[in-house]
Structure formats: C-alpha cells, structure tokens
C-alpha cells in the first residue's frame, strides 16, 4: 500500500530575500528537489529599454540593496565597453575601492548575522552575540568600515550615488581617503582574527564535485576582468559569456536558472570559485592565512565558503589600504564621451558570484536591449543538485531537522533572492 505524506515546516530565513524548498520522495528515494524562488517580477530588463544610458547604473542598483555596487559596476563597464571608453588606472582603482567596501559590508553581514549562528544552533546573529559578544561586535564594526568606504566614495552605503558612465561624478579629496586608513588598519587585524575564529567552526564533511566559474586574472584577485575560468572546462572570454552559459526558466521558480549550454551542467559561482582559482593573487596576509588555516585546497565544501568569505575580507582590507595609501586625486573624475550605437558586455564579481550585463545602445544613447544574469540564478541549479546529494544520509531524521539542515546548506551559498516576495516554506513530500 502506498502512503503519501506532505510536510511543511518553518520558513527559510536568514537569506537575502525569500523563497522555498520542495523535496518529494518516493519510498525514501528522492524524487524532486526544487528551490522555489518566488521572486516577484520587477521587469528591469523591460523598463530599461528606451532609457538614456546614463540612468542605467542608478536603475540597476535597485535590483539589490545588498550588492548595489556590483550592479553599478557591471552596468557601467558594459556600457563603457559599448562606447569604447577606456577607464584610466586611477579611476579604476577607486572603483575597486568602492567594491572593497561592498565585499566587506556584504560578507561581514553574511558571516556574522546570517551564517555563523548555524554553527552554534542559534536563531540569529543577535542571539549569537549574547554568547560571543566580542566576536559579533567585532564583526559589526568590520561591516561598518565597509559601509564607511561606501559612504566616503559613494555618499551612502545602500544605493550609493557617485558612479557614472566614464568614472565618478566626483573623486574623493586626499584627506577623505586618508581618514579611512586608521579604521582600515584596525580592520585588517580584526579580519585576520575573525578568520581564525571562523576556521575553528565545526564544518560538516560534505565535498562536492564542482565546475567552479569566476573571473580570473593573471595577477589581480578578481573584481573586474575579461576572462572567465572554469574548473571543468576551457576558460572563455566575457564576450562569449552567452555562448557558454544560458538562462532558462523552470515552472517552480520565477528566478531564471542557468547552466552551461553545451553540457547542460550546473556550475558554482562565488567565493569558493574565486578562491580556488585565484588565491595565489591574494595580498600577502590573506595569501599566508589561506595556507595556515584548516582548509584543504582545492576546497569544494560549500559550508566552508564562510572561510573563503573571511579570507576575501582580509584581502579586501589589504587592497583598500593599498589604494588609500597610494591615492593621488585624478585630474578628471570621468572620461567624456559621445553617445553612439554599440553593443557592450561586462562581468564583475559581486560578493556572491559573477554578475553579467549586456546592453545594446542606439545612436541617441538610449538602451535598446538589456540582459542581466545575476549570480543567484546561476547558482540555483547547483544548490538543488547539492541538496540532492546532501539529503540521503539525513532522511532518517525528523522532518524539522531535515528542514534545518537543508536551510543551513542553502544559507552557505549566501543566496540573494532580493526580489523575492513570498514567505519561504520548506515542504517535504514523502510517498511510501
């Protein structure tokens, strides 16, 4: 006799945005694993059509309040590629500094308030703070320094206002960047201590077989770049992005998913991909630390991406310090340009993975077509595949424990479901 059972438990929490997980089983064999992102459509790619190209960085920033700089950077770089604008080194360095601010802010939020509570069984960062007050306060201060960088360079931390096509509206004065240095020096030491703290966590033993994809440069750890590295395939140029990776739609999610076109296989984007490909390009403190904390390289355990994030924070502090110490105010804040017809694409590394933009522009400088592929769409299929591998040993547990374990795994990817609207449910359907 077959008995069907559907169980709904809890809400998927401590992620940016809201979604659900649906697992169905037949005689204890997993049938379907579906990560539902009930993303409320916001139609950015549609309403960008006809807008002046100058508006795009501010408009696309509104896709995500956690990583607005990533949207500003990918859109500005793509449009600059279309207009064949070369960004001078000193302006590029300031953009990198802005990105350092976002990585520090976003990573420290995720590490302390979203993911770390899982390793101790607490419900929130605030509860974690009662038991680890010094560590959580240190984490919040680190996060605040990230925000300070964003405020000095961009006016505010959420949707900063200073990025424009060709550079910045205004470059900071020398003393504005100098004023950041003491906090950055403290932050570097604090980030190193944080990495040691996090490296002492008890990581579940779960190693996956990943195709890791990120931007990869010969000497720089990637924020920007034109070459994509893949651990299971050939490197490819950003120009060819849409020939290698495509988005497709599934009935259970309003976020588009993505996979490699040729093999139809899932890929993992984000800190684990970057650190496996590019840790040799870390600044000295981060590089040394990567060898001395307990990580086996290559690292393919998604739970350890919190360590990758903390190492990236160390690197970001070193990068920010270098930029602030060597800063000389450029004579011009931006490169002038004439609007003209063209097509441009660019990828940059958002905190949670590669963010790709492509724009077609007409003679008058109006957007004719926009394509945006965000990191969480690209990771969604991989998250589902990992859950499928992670679940079998857990099935003897009660449903609420299975749910919690799944949530913990999902959280480790730092999914940014920021456009999602509906409450997240986890449902397990057991057919016996």
């Amino acid at each position: 006799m077959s008995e069907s059972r559907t169980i709904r438990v809890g809400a998927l929490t401590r992620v940016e945005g809201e979604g659900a997980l649906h697992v169905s089983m037949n005689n204890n064999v997993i049938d379907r694993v579906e990560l539902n992102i009930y993303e409320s459509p916001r139609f950015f790619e549609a309403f960008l059509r006809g807008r002046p190209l100058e508006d795009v960085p501010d408009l696309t920033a509104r896709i995500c309040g956690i990583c607005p700089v990533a949207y500003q950077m990918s859109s500005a770089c793509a449009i600059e590629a279309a207009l064949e604008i070369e960004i001078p080194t000193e302006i590029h360095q300031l953009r990198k500094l802005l990105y350092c601010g976002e990585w520090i802010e976003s990573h420290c939020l995720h590490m302390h308030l979203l993911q770390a509570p899982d390793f101790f069984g607490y419900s929130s960062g605030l509860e974690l703070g009662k038991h680890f007050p010094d560590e959580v306060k240190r984490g919040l201060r680190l996060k605040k320094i990230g925000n300070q960088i964003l405020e000095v360079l961009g006016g505010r931390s959420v949707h900063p206002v200073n990025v424009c096509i060709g550079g910045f509206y205004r470059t900071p004065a020398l003393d504005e960047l100098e004023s950041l240095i003491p906090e950055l020096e403290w932050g570097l030491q604090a980030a190193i201590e944080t990495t040691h703290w996090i490296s002492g966590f008890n990581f579940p033993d779960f190693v996956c077989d990943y195709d890791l994809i990120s931007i990869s440069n010969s000497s720089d750890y990637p924020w920007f770049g034109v070459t994509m590295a893949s651990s299971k395939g050939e490197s490819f140029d950003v120009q060819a992005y849409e020939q290698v990776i495509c988005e497709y739609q599934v009935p259970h999610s309003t976020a588009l998913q993505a996979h490699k076109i040729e093999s139809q296989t899932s890929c993992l984007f984000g800190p684990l991909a970057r650190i496996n490909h590019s840790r040799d390009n870390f600044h000295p403190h981060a590089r040394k630390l990567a060898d001395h904390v307990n990580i086996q390289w290559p690292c393919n355990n998604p739970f350890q991406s919190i360590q990758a994030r903390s190492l990236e924070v160390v690197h970001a502090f070193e990068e920010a310090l270098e930029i602030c110490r060597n800063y000389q105010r450029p004579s011009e804040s931006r490169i002038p340009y004439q609007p003209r017809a063209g097509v441009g694409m660019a990828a940059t590394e958002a905190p949670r993975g590669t963010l790709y933009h492509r724009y077609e522009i007409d003679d008058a400088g109006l957007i004719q077509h926009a394509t945006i592929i965000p990191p969480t769409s690209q990771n969604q299929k991989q998250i589902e595949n990992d859950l499928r591998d992670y679940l079998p040993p857990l099935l003897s547990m009660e449903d609420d424990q299975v749910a919690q374990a799944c949530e913990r795994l999902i959280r480790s990817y730092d999914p940014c479901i920021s456009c999602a609207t509906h409450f997240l449910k986890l449902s397990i359907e057991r057919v016996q």
Partner: protein
Amino acid sequence: MPEKLRLGIFKFASCDGCQLSLLNAEEELLELAELVEFAHFPEASSRIESGPYDLVLIEGSISTPEDLDRIQQIRRQTDTLVTIGACATAGGIQALRNGANHDEFMKLVYPHPEYVQSLATSTPISNHVSVDFELRGCPVDTGQLLQIISDKLHHRKFSVPDHSVCRDCKLQNIVCVSVARGIPCLGPLTQAGCGAICPRFHRGCYGCFGPCHQTNTDGLTDWLIKDGHSSSQLIPLFLNVNAEAPEFARTAAQLIRQDSAEGESDE
C-alpha cells in the same frame, strides 16, 4: 523591566535595501535588541513569531495577486503599520511597468510567462490598507528608521522633517549644481532625508525621497526648460524610483505631452 516592543518586518516587491538599512544600524542594533523583540524579521532571525505585533514595518510594493491577501492579513495583526522606502510608499522603480504593456513586459523577461504570477501594476501599501506613517527614501535613512521605532517605543507622534533637499543643501554651503553647473536637480521638489548627497557629489538630485510638502514643480520645470533643457531630457528624472508618487507622475505626464507637442510642431 517593561515589556519589549513586538516588531514585525515584512517584505513585498523590493530590493531588501530598506531592511538592510536597519541592519546597518550596527552597534545600535544590539542596543535596540534590548528594547525591541524582533518577532518577525526573517532576514535576520530564524525565530518567527506570529502576531499580534505592536509595530510592523513594510518594505516593498504590492505587485502579485498573493500580495493582495497577504497585506490584509498583516494589517489585521498589527497595532501600527509603517511603510519603509519608495517601493512601499510609492510603488518603487517596478511601478515603471504601470503605464506599459504588462504582457509585453512578461514576454520580454520570461520565456514562459504562464509560470509567473504578476499584477499589471505595482502599487503602494496605502492603496490597499490603512497606513499609520510613510517613511520615504530609496533607501530609507537609518537614522530616520531608528527614530520611527523610538517614536513608537516612547508613544510619540511619528514625524520627520518635510522640507526640501534644496534647503539642506544650502545649509551645507554646497555650490548649487543647477545654477553654477547647469545640471537639472530635483532638490527643490524632493523631501529631505538623504543629506543632499547628490549635489555634494556634483550631480543633480534624482528624487529618491519623493516629492516634499508644498512643491512648485511647474516653476522648476519651466525654469529648467528656459535654462536650455528639453522636456525629453527631464522626463527620465521624474520617471524614477518615485515615478508613481502623484506629483512626480503628474509632472512626467505633462512633460511627455509637451515633448510630443514639440515633436509635432517640429514636423
């Protein structure tokens, strides 16, 4: 010790940035947790408690059929409801769909529009339930957000300054970007709260906090047009994160009419 304030935070169509503005309170967040129980704040805590709540903060706009029911349920569970940000208060950037062809938009973004539930419009929370206070901004200002929570804690009337960005800008002695550099700026029309950051960065205000109390919008657009800007250049300024705020929507519509009339007279 008095009972803690039961706070609920709920999200509709939005970018998460206004909730993040609360998490950006950093050290104050720990102090706040002494006075406030985060009874429903899924972005920050796995402990989800059902209502009733003393204060609910709503981020995001109403844009799907399910939202219509959910906002009614939430309203019934709370004593006080405050909207936070341009999405909840004016429909947000996603309200740019409101004048457009919704089916066409769906087809542009989704290969299978039939999988997706969406309303043809994105509307503010106050179109659907009674709202006790609307906090402006894209994003909201962390200080103003903390003040609202503090007002509720101390039984004060909600209030934030409703003068213009222009006034704050003058008080900071920033050289006027419109007068000195010829850059169109919505500072004279936009509610203060951001600290006049755009003029500080040598660009015009683009209206994140929406129209302020008692605006002279036509006066500004007439002046900008006399100063050499065309109607078509000014339209995108109003069709932005607060496109559906009535004063901005009215002005955009007027500029669009003017622009097409100019186009016709050129022919």
